[in-house]
């Protein structure tokens, strides 16, 4: 690429400023939580800073006395300098396409982030055994149940799910309060009242999200729809499913809720 006209330097600087501003904004507002694991947040901050540096460098070129920056390409790469009009036209088109490609994510970035729709769950699949993830993360593997009651949050959601699928006897009779979305995987043989109360589990970014959750049984006559977010309260019972004994939560109270501001589980 190069040499660069003043207009091009301004375009390049604007693109870099755009990325810098977008990433700084996501970091400051917590919007990064809708896209990537928390361990990438500081990297995003560094990226925003470097983009700012790149933008300022381009801007310095724009305001400099020299009319253009000249690259080694111009100076004699491969020993040829080709100034045919067709070559210049082709180069200009390639540059324009490159800048357009860079602008597209910024345009999408204008839309306030809201995270993955629960309806994508069907394409993501359900993971019920994330024990290997916890071993890698070095997380503690015990649920803290107080007076036979467990309030589920983002830190113990997967632990509960693993317990209900793998060691349900330890949880029989425990009262559970949890928030998740209703999901009926097409490959599970569930009745109309039976759902998975699901959350997206992220290991790196939204692209690798999978659904983690546990069986619940909604009360007869419930009015929520699949993929609605619901806050539930219920009691764990033992149930038979495909020849296995699993834990399921009999829902006594439920309420359709808004998606939380931190919808993902991070591991």
């Amino acid at each position, binding site marked *: 690429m190069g040499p660069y006209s003043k207009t091009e330097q301004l375009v*390049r600087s604007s693109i870099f400023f755009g990325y810098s501003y977008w990433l700084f904004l996501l970091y400051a507002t917590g919007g990064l939580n809708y*896209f990537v694991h928390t361990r990438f947040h500081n990297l995003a901050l560094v990226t925003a800073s470097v983009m700012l540096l*790149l933008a300022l460098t381009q801007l310095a070129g724009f305001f400099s006395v020299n009319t253009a920056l000249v690259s080694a390409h111009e100076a004699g790469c491969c020993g040829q300098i080709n100034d045919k009009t067709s070559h210049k036209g082709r180069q200009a088109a390639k540059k324009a396409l490159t800048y357009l490609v860079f602008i597209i*994510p910024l345009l999408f970035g204008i839309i306030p982030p809201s995270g993955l729709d629960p309806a994508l769950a069907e*394409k993501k699949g359900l993971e019920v055994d994330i024990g290997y993830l916890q071993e890698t993360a070095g997380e503690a593997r015990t649920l803290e149940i107080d007076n036979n009651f467990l309030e589920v949050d983002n830190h113990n959601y997967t632990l509960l799910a693993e317990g209900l699928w793998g060691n349900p006897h330890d949880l029989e009779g425990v009262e559970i309060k949890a928030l998740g979305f209703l999901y009926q995987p097409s490959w599970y043989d569930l009745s109309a009242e039976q759902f998975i109360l699901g959350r997206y589990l992220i290991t*790196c*970014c939204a692209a690798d999200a999978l659904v983690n959750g546990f069986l619940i049984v909604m009360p007869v006559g419930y009015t929520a729809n699949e993929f609605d977010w619901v806050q539930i309260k219920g009691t764990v019972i033992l149930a038979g499913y495909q020849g296995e004994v699993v834990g399921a939560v009999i829902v006594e109270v439920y309420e359709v809720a808004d998606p939380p501001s931190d919808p993902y589980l991070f591991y």
Partner: protein
Amino acid sequence: MLNNLITIFLSIIIEALPFVLIGVFASSLIHLFISEELISRIIPKQRFARLLIAPLLGILFPICECGIVLVVRRLIQKGVPPSAAITFMLAVPIINPVVAASTHMAFPHIPMLYYRMIGAFIIAVLIGLIIELFFNRPDQYLRETPQHDDCCDRHLLQIETKPKKKSYLQNAMELITHAGDDLFVMGKYLIMGSFLAALIQSAVSRELLVSIGQGETSSIAVMMLLAYGLSICSEADAFVASSFSLTFIPASLTAFLLYGPMTDIKNTLMMLGCFKAKFVAIWLALITVSVFLLTYLMAILL
């Protein structure tokens, strides 16, 4: 679906950008301040030792696959045996600290880092050995006059004439400008590849992806095709690959991570600009067969 597409698309970009930036700055540092003479001095003269050392030079010189073609051409012109230069070209875009870091970050729960590094070393040495035994004359490779459009798509190398002494600030400005240039070249493939990956994730049914992704032959072939077509730089491709980790077997993801940096559309065009078509065809065939066989073996054994 649009919301999911956008979310996944942007998530891959946000995740991968830091590593692309590290890569462009590292590459620019090398291109501006490290000469091919230094690289050629480090490569051993002994016939088979150089095949084992050349793939590891990426640890010192993390050159991305965009810049490696011209570096290799210049190495051969300066007398480095083609076998060593080709081995260098195949391995250096993969076996380097930046790619290692991004691969590890993208696959925290699968030992993909080891699969990738060891796989790259084996394939690079194997192909280097074949070239050492059968194709080791520079006249078998190099075009007399490189094609301008393909070879010089972007400025990459130090020019041969001695540059006049620059201040630290001038060097820093030149480095940052070069890095910005490289970011536009490499970043566009990341963005396009991320978009395609997001489209597949949000539009294609899981059943179809699983049916392709769980078969050894189909999954490896599809991933190699995807890697060839997407032309994503090796610093960022791990994040695109990891988005398929739920539906494709690890061996196919390894194939993606080996094949892409070794050859892709962009790289093939650059090769054709600097090397003879017959050599490029042989090189392409060797890489394709090697990657497929190695990862197929991996799929069977793991």
